[in-house]
């Protein structure tokens, strides 16, 4: 009861505040994103810059746990509440578009041909007809993190360049106790982390396969190439014994604790590794396949204008969208969050492309693929179960991958039916 009263009082106050602010001809727009420390502080910095350039516009940022994202957005926008500009995962665009929660970006301010040229090519998935519907500030890719101190201790010169070298390097980095239990892994493993991307878009392709056909509507990794990729991946634990699934609970935890020689992860991990005291780490491009094939996985979050934004709020939102997709904004995002610029003009500058940390990720973008997920956690689960069946139940790679392909195909069919 007390809190209801308080809410009422607050609503009253905000109402009064809104009256005053509109009297001063100021526009307030709302921006929503999920909570991730570095992203929030980067956005705060961008909002500050934007407001300095546009003193008549204020941007209010709201953030909340990732898990609540869709529920909140879906409930708020139709009710005329919530964001004017919203951040969403690239894979959700279709759902948001069909539900009429977002509106296309005006072609006058965001000309299609110009964007086609200035952004990395995978961003074109956000285009339909004469309009782009959403644009990213930053993109992500994968790379191989390695622990410099452990490399020095083991007398290893540098990170492995090929998959064979990866195995050999990992062997030197693995430590076991008297009973043969692994106490330090050569390389972390876990499909729950980024490894399912590494498997899909990198290993399967490097073994000569193509993980999906028909614009990601058909699973295509239940092939010889897929089996080879799976044998290689599970072989790291079973055959070469350089890793253990679920070692130290989470791959990134093992790497942070200095108990893992190598770790494949996304560019978003840089920020938290930077803060880990006593960890000396380096980054390298993902190892190439047996025939030299390079591959990588890229994903991104986009910003879009919601259907709630109208009139002067719409104009302000367009201005804000332009600001947060500008070259300067991308540089801020790179510096603060460690996510890669979505435009080659920012990403491939001398300084960025040769950066010791960001360089390997940015160079990876040139040969990266973007999986069109319909239900990322469900599709990930299929691959996790595939590895569990081999790890715990001793199933063969051929059977495991056949079941996984079937399960994932079912998810795709349910969505595209």
């Amino acid at each position, binding site marked *: 009861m007390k809190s209801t009263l308080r809410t009422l009082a607050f609503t009253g106050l905000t109402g009064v505040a809104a009256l005053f602010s509109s009297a001063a001809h100021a526009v307030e727009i709302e921006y929503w994103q999920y909570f991730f420390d570095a992203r929030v502080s980067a956005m705060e910095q961008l909002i500050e810059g934007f407001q300095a350039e546009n003193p008549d516009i204020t941007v209010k940022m709201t953030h909340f746990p990732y898990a609540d994202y869709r529920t909140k957005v879906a409930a708020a926008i139709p009710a005329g509440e919530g964001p004017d500009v919203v951040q969403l995962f690239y894979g959700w665009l279709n759902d948001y578009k069909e539900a009429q929660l977002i509106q296309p970006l005006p072609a006058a301010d965001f000309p299609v041909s110009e964007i086609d040229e200035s952004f990395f090519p995978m961003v074109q998935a956000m285009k339909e007809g004469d309009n782009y519907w959403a644009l990213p500030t930053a993109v992500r890719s994968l790379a191989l993190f390695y622990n410099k101190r452990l490399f020095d201790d083991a007398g290893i010169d540098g990170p492995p360049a090929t998959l064979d070298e990866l195995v050999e390097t990992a062997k030197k980095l693995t430590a076991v106790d008297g009973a043969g239990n692994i106490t330090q892994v050569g390389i972390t493993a876990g499909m729950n982390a980024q490894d399912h991307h590494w498997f899909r878009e990198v290993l399967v392709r490097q073994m000569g396969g193509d993980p999906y056909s028909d614009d990601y509507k058909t699973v295509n990794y239940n092939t010889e190439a897929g089996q080879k990729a799976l044998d290689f991946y599970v072989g790291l634990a079973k055959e070469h014994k350089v890793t253990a699934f679920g070692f130290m609970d989470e791959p990134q935890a093992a790497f942070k604790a200095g*108990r893992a020689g190598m770790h494949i992860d996304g560019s978003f991990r840089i920020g938290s590794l930077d803060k880990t005291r006593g960890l000396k780490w380096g980054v390298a491009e993902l190892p190439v396949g047996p025939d030299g094939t390079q591959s990588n996985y890229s994903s991104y979050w986009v910003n879009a204008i919601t259907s709630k934004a109208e009139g002067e709020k719409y104009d302000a939102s367009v201005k804000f969208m332009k600001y947060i997709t500008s070259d300067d904004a991308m540089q801020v995002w790179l510096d603060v969050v460690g996510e890669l610029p979505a435009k080659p003009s920012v990403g491939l500058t001398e300084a960025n492309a040769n950066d010791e940390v960001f360089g390997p990720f940015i160079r990876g973008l040139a040969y990266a693929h973007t999986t069109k997920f319909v239900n990322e956690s469900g599709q990930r689960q299929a691959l996790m179960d595939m590895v569990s069946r081999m790890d715990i139940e001793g199933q063969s790679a051929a059977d495991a991958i056949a079941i996984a392909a079937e399960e994932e195909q079912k998810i795709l069919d349910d969505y595209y039916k």
Partner: protein
Amino acid sequence: MTLYRNLTIKQKQIVWAWSFLALPVLFYGVIRFYPTGTAFVISFQEWNLLGSRTWTGFDNYVTLWNDPVFWKVFKNTFAYLLIGTPVSLVLSFVIAYHLDKLRFMHNFLRMLYFLPFMTSAVAMAWVWRWFYQGVPIGLFNNILAGFGIPQIEFLNSTTNALPAVLAPAIWAGLGFQVIIFMAGLRAIPVSFYEAAKIDGVGWWTVLTQITLPLLKPTMVFIVVFSSIGFLRIFDHVFNMTTNNPGGPLNSTKPLVLMIYDTAFNGFNMGYAAAQTVVLFTILLIVSLVQLRLLRSE
């Protein structure tokens, strides 16, 4: 006002009673019954949370019936119930029975048993999750390794994972059940025990003829309460298996986690609502059966 004045005292009492009841009734109507009703409706629809809803008849239920994961999850849910309820009932009774006789540091011990109940399930689940890890970080496995005993895969196993997840859940609920049992024990008139003593009856007979029969209402409450708790188990499983929710290979997945996953990862609200209706039905049947079986005269 005259209308009210003309009422009989009996009618006035009713008016007053209902005006006080109005708030909780309204609350339950809006917060409980309306969403429950909506869930029933959604279970016959297809909805991805964003777009419009479309009617699909019994499709969701048919899919559910043919879903092997559902049957696995169904079995798990009952495993939680059928292991969790008896184990926690016996444990909490044994503890309460002895704690009741104990005077030395009684309050301190009672506090220790009650503490886990007040602790956040999330924090507890994470601590236990780390206890269960292998070397070099897991407490249990480090102890085993210290004695040269082979490692036990607690969570990364299709057979051990469910009991491993259940253990802290039982431990967490124990404090509450102990308190309820102790209240029940205290409510038994001392004169019965004195009479038994005069008659020279042994402790076993006292336990089975006096204590347990008189604790029946307490036990009914605890059984129903903890059954509902175990059928709805979620926080412990979710937090101990976030790397592979309900895994490995669905071996720990309870119905509520499946509902959560379908609704908020798959965004298949209709299918999730159908699962919810099934859970509702199970809870209803189990509670009714238990009430009937254990009803005191």
